């Protein structure tokens, strides 16, 4: 299945923009976290509402999901979901450079999510001459049902989502999380327009 019905050129272009954004974001993260960050080329896939809902329900019980809205010029908008497994949250405070006990696990997860989302999307936006604004990240109450419910109740009608799987590996420390960008159909059309313009200029 092609991503968002993009043609081969458009798809390559999107993958390239995301790769570059990922690279720069991880570079910034490494500096900020003051440790070596290794990451694989992000896998990008298209998921529809039903299959995403299903795949989240099949996951372990107590996943944490953080949601953060983003919006930029030219109608590019959506919602980022950061999905964590419980075992990933053990040493986040340490990684983020906070003192033990200084912030709760929830706050750590939210903080990290915001950092992952905004660093990635900031670079992504600048790649396409755009600029993003963000809503405050929210921890969706733990538990699978609430996540599936959330997906069904999203304020916009989204048909497809871009699932960017990021695996961060940090020296002496490892965690995985999936970043899922939910993008409404109208915004997908807008992204295509932007991609076409980039391809034209190229």
């Amino acid at each position, binding site marked *: 299945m092609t991503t968002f019905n993009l043609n081969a050129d458009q798809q390559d272009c999107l993958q390239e923009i995301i790769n570059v954004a990922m690279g720069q974001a991880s570079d*910034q*993260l490494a*500096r*900020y976290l003051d440790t070596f960050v290794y990451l694989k080329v992000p896998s990008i896939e298209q998921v529809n509402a039903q299959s995403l809902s299903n795949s989240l329900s099949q996951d372990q019980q107590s996943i944490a999901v953080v949601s953060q809205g983003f919006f930029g010029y030219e109608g590019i908008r959506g919602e980022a979901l950061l999905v964590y497994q419980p075992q990933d949250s053990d040493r986040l405070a340490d990684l*983020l*450079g*906070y*003192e033990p006990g*200084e*912030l*709760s696990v*929830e*706050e750590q997860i*939210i*903080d990290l999510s*915001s*950092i992952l989302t*905004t*660093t990635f999307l*900031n670079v992504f936006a600048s790649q396409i001459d755009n600029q993003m604004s*963000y809503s*405050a*990240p*929210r*921890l969706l109450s733990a538990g699978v049902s609430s996540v599936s419910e959330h997906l069904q109740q999203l304020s916009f009608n989204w048909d497809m989502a871009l699932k960017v799987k990021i695996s961060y590996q940090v020296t002496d420390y490892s965690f995985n999380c999936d970043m899922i960008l939910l993008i409404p159909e109208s915004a997908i059309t807008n992204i295509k327009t932007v991609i076409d313009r980039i391809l034209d200029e190229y």
Partner: protein
Amino acid sequence: MSVDTFCSAIINQLNTGVLVIDLDFNIVKWNRFLEIHTNKKPENAIGKCLFSTFPELPQKWFERKVASVVQLKSPSFCSWEQRHHLFNLPHTRPITTDSKVMAQNITFLPIETQGVIEHICILIEDVTDVCHYQSMLRQTLDELALANRIDGLTQIFNRKHWEECLAKEFSRARRYGHDVSLIMFDLDHFKRLNDTYGHQCGDMVLMEIAKLSQSLLRLCDIFGRYGGEEFAIILPETDLAGAADVAERIRKGIGKLSLTFQDKVITTSASIGVAVIESHNNRYEDLISNADTALYQAKALGRDRICLSQQQTECIELG
């Protein structure tokens, strides 16, 4: 009117705190919202250190937060749900909410001057209302959840919730090879009580029996109203003999109970069936039906007694 005056007029009318600091944590600017809520004159704040103006701020945390905004050039957030507030400010609903300090959603924004971040803008939103309604909602949901589990008359677990508990305890006992016992008891001649003294009397007796039985149980026992005048108790980690002891305590307690209704002394008794999980029981319903059979036996043998369910049912005679 110049754009600057225009902007500052608007910023001063905002119902949101706007605070600009430099990277040495000195206050560069703030709006009227903050001036009013802190009750400080600008000359006592502008140019002063943020942490001396707001000594309540968690300094190390705050510095780390600002460092992330500067380094990553991206906004950072702090929600009342994780931290109720950062700045110790009063709010506008001190009478109608129980909160003393303004609940806040805070945004840290990087402000670039010619491509370099030299300032951080901190937006402070008053979300006391949201926080208040959210806690009211949570309280209501808790009450609803409780109401959904409780029998309205006797205030013990209702049948539905009790049965869910049994299903859980049963499968746990089976998985780990532990004991779980079940006591089911029924008030003797309850219909006669209702017919003679009326349903209000019957209700009173049910409430008192529930209260008494609950007081004779251990903390981990799960007590519910199974239906009408029938009650049921799950006893985790308890063998048949242990459950029989509890049942006997309850039978004696009920027998001794003397209640008054409209100046008449009411006494009652209970027939009790006791069962323990057996290796061939695959479903929790098996346990119910064993206890129920024992209960039926206790009735058949003349009431006010306990019958134990086993390969051969044995009965403790009224003593």
